[in-house]
């Protein structure tokens, strides 16, 4: 099977990344100063090669780089680390939600949803989650599902 340029560039990118990790690990574990120096030089060369092939792959559209993150999502992560909590407004029109839910994961899940009736209860919900009774709603009762704890008195 003949590989095209995209396949080749992808494999080289992968080889470079693994090579850098392997050489870095070996250098860290090395006690022989001359060998350590050699490994560090190899790592520097490997990093330059990785940069070169990355630029070439992006320029030729052989590789799709990650897009810049939305500034609101960055802000939520920053808040999480500076304040220990991320503002969460809760579903529209519903009051009483604690503003402690974590940021929505880019994969589409919002964790840490706080039920006002059961303090401390956490359940991950996908974006576009519908409340019970709504069209297309399926209660999560698959393997591994645990009923939420009863409300505290």
């Amino acid at each position: 099977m003949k590989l095209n340029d995209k396949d080749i560039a992808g494999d080289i990118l992968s080889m470079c990344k693994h090579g850098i990790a392997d050489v870095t690990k070996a250098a860290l574990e090395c006690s022989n100063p001359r060998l350590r120096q050699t490994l560090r030089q190899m790592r520097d060369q490997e990093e330059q090669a990785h940069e070169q092939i990355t630029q070439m792959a992006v320029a030729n559209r052989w590789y799709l780089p990650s897009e810049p993150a939305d500034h609101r999502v960055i802000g939520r992560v920053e808040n999480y680390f500076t304040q220990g909590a991320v503002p969460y407004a809760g579903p529209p029109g519903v009051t009483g939600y604690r503003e402690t839910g974590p940021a929505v994961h880019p994969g589409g899940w919002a964790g840490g949803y706080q039920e006002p009736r059961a303090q401390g209860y956490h359940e991950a919900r996908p974006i576009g989650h519908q409340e019970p009774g709504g069209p297309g709603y399926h209660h999560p009762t698959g393997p591994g599902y645990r009923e939420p704890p009863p409300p505290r008195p």
Partner: protein
Amino acid sequence: MTHLTYLELESLRHLIGECEVKARKLEAYAGQAESPELRSFCRQHADSANRSRQTLQSFLRERGGVQ
């Protein structure tokens, strides 16, 4: 004589094998790639991987370790 630990010997064994495969793959890619820029990169880095392999093998030739 250079001293080599077992951990260093294992690293050398692993890295020399990696360099060998990498050099062969890059040589093969240099013959397959359509882009002249990519072909040139592959040739250049296949040589580099071969040189790295030789450098690492030189540590084994010194036969560092317990006599």
